[in-house]
């Protein structure tokens, strides 16, 4: 194994177009498509072209007019560097699952520090396999080249040379053949070198450095040192963000949430990768549909239990979206998540007591999953579970919680024969229809919060032989004559 420390540079020449193509159907991908830029007053020219366009004779750098004459059904879109940089950042995040040190070279390059990964993946070949496996998941055209300095790797990759040799000599040889126009030197220096007859990097490397420095200045000295691997400038490594914010261009206007599910799957896949790297889970996320007039539709999605798999999240988001309507068509879709929680360790145990606890936790998780699913489709308030509260007033002796309760019921002080049902509002009744059976139980409470009550509760039978819980509201102690009776609950 060579002792030289190596860098790899990943060049993605068609990143933005690849990203757009990956969102299209197979049939759409077969259409010739190009991205064009216009450099100010000059003509617009093709900067990225898909396979169908190239097959039709379109070349990069060709004028847009020429290209559309060649292929009348050519689809043209504007190239946007800022957006491509975003995509690059997402790519870095994707690769960050395997590679810790990545530096961004926007808009189309990533520098990977692979030297320290050899032990983990089993040599450079192992790293290469891992990288290829990871990139196969997303359809991106790329060139990877190795270099004994970051600059060398970058020059090789950008000139389209797929050299992943570990031998310095082989890399130097490949470098020697790179034309000066791809040397990444400033244009005026390229011109100067070409004027003295240096067309490739090989002859340049053969020249004495001191003389070059005298002729071209300090920047040339530093460039030559990097080219020879003597100077390794520090890199700004990519740090993945702690919140998740991704945005996808939909290319066409989309009129319903159902059509957004496919792009959404990609966003959730990104989120899964994001969560996987950090061993986090998420309980809440926000979906934002961006409309043509800059307005946004915001949908908050909450899960009853922490999730991190794309499959699980998609299922719940899908259920939630079935209730929503998209009022105006969307042009872009973004996904945001900020609330993360560490994943709970899930491992069984050999000890019987702990096995029980494990089974119980498992059951609890299943219950939360069910509640989450029901709430996603029916709304958060649709499923509730009661909790006991310490209050004498019957309507306050329990409260409802929108999620499944973890704890066992806590014992209350009083254990009284309460009904199994409670009416949401006490119903006025005519007491002569009822046959009193048990009572009274006087409840006098709530004087401290302004909702005081004095009631005499009875258990009584109605004419259908049903046992009800009825009460007499006592306004004051004396007036017992024309009092109002209410039905408040049912037994059985």
């Amino acid at each position, binding site marked *: 194994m060579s002792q030289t420390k190596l860098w790899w540079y990943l060049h993605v020449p068609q990143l933005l177009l690849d990203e757009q193509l990956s969102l299209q159907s197979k049939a759409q991908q077969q259409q010739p498509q190009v991205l064009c830029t216009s450099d100010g007053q000059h003509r617009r020219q093709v900067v990225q072209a898909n396979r169908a366009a190239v097959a039709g004779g379109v070349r990069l750098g060709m004028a847009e007019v020429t290209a559309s004459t060649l292929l009348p059904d050519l689809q043209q879109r504007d190239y946007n560097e800022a957006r491509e940089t975003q995509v690059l950042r997402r790519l870095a995040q994707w690769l960050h699952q395997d590679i810790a040190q990545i530096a961004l070279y926007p808009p189309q390059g990533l520098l990977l520090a692979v030297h320290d990964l050899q032990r983990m993946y089993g040599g450079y070949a192992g790293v290469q396999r891992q990288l290829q496996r990871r990139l196969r998941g997303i359809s991106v055209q790329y060139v990877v080249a190795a270099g004994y300095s970051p600059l060398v790797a970058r020059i090789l990759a950008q000139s389209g040379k797929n050299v992943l040799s570990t031998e310095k000599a082989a890399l130097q040889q490949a470098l020697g053949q790179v034309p000066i126009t791809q040397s990444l030197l400033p244009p005026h220096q390229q011109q100067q070198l070409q004027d003295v007859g240096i067309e490739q990097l090989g002859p340049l490397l053969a020249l004495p450095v001191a003389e070059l420095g005298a002729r071209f200045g300090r920047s040339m000295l530093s460039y030559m040192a990097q080219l020879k691997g003597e100077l390794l400038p520090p890199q700004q490594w990519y740090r993945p963000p702690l919140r998740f914010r991704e945005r996808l261009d939909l290319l066409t206007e989309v009129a319903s949430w159902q059509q957004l599910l496919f792009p959404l799957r990609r966003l959730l896949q990104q989120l899964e990768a994001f969560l996987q790297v950090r061993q986090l889970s998420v309980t809440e996320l926000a979906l934002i549909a961006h409309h043509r007039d800059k307005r946004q539709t915001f949908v908050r999605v909450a899960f009853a239990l922490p999730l991190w798999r794309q499959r699980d999240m998609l299922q719940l988001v899908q259920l939630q979206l079935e209730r929503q309507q998209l009022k105006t068509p969307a042009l872009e879709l973004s996904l945001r998540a900020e609330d993360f929680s560490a994943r709970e360790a899930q491992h069984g145990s050999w000890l019987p007591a702990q096995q029980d606890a494990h089974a119980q936790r498992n*059951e609890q998780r299943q219950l939360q999953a069910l509640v989450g699913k029901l709430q996603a489709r029916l709304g958060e308030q649709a499923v509730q579970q009661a909790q006991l509260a310490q209050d004498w007033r019957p309507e306050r*002796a329990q409260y409802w919680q929108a999620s*499944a309760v973890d704890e066992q019921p806590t014992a209350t002080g009083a254990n009284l024969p309460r009904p199994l049902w409670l009416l949401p509002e006490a119903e006025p009744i005519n007491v002569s229809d009822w046959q009193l059976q*048990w009572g009274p139980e006087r409840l006098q409470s709530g004087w401290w919060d302004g909702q005081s009550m004095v009631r005499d509760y009875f258990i009584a039978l109605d004419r259908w032989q049903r*046992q009800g819980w009825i009460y007499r509201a006592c306004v004051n102690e004396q007036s017992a004559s024309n009092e109002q009776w209410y039905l408040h609950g*049912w037994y059985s």
Partner: protein
Amino acid sequence: MAHPLQELVHKGWVWQGREAAEQLAPDQLVSSGWAELDRRLGGGWLRGAVHEVQVQHHFQGELALLLPVLLEQTKPCLWLNPPCQPYWPGLHYQHLKQAPLWLQEKDQKQALWAFEQALQSKALGVVVAWFDSIDASAVRRLQQSAAKHQQLAFVITPWQQTTEARAYVNRLQLSWAAEQLQVAVLKRRAGWPLPAFPCNIERHLPERRRLSA
């Protein structure tokens, strides 16, 4: 064209004796908690099945009838569209182990969807659902789902006037006579319908006595 007899079998009007010979594992049956009812149902409620309880009026005693089964559950039960708010202090007094999950959904289609989801989950005890009416195909679907996931479920509906067949395993009809809850078996596994018999559900209700006015 099917044989006319086939049609009758399909409608559930013909009882075929071979089902009686069918052997059930003991854990397939859940005791209803009422000896008389167990005897009539051939051992108790069949697990992996939906049972129907028809009531003349809500709160007539249907919950007291189901209470023994509910008390056995260590997992929470789901109450789907109950006629009013379940009261946990009262249920707790009856020694129910877990507060019920209360699901309220007006749209029948959504409610049936939720019912099916609940039947598929292993995290729940018994599912009890209240429906005013429910069509035959929905019942068949629920029954299949319950059988597949071995869940026990009850549907409580008002008295049905029509005699249209439903895929429920047992169909009971509750009424009140002679100060006792009467349970008629309209349909049961491997057997003819049975006339009403009194069921002593009082042990789960407050004591009945006349108050001296």
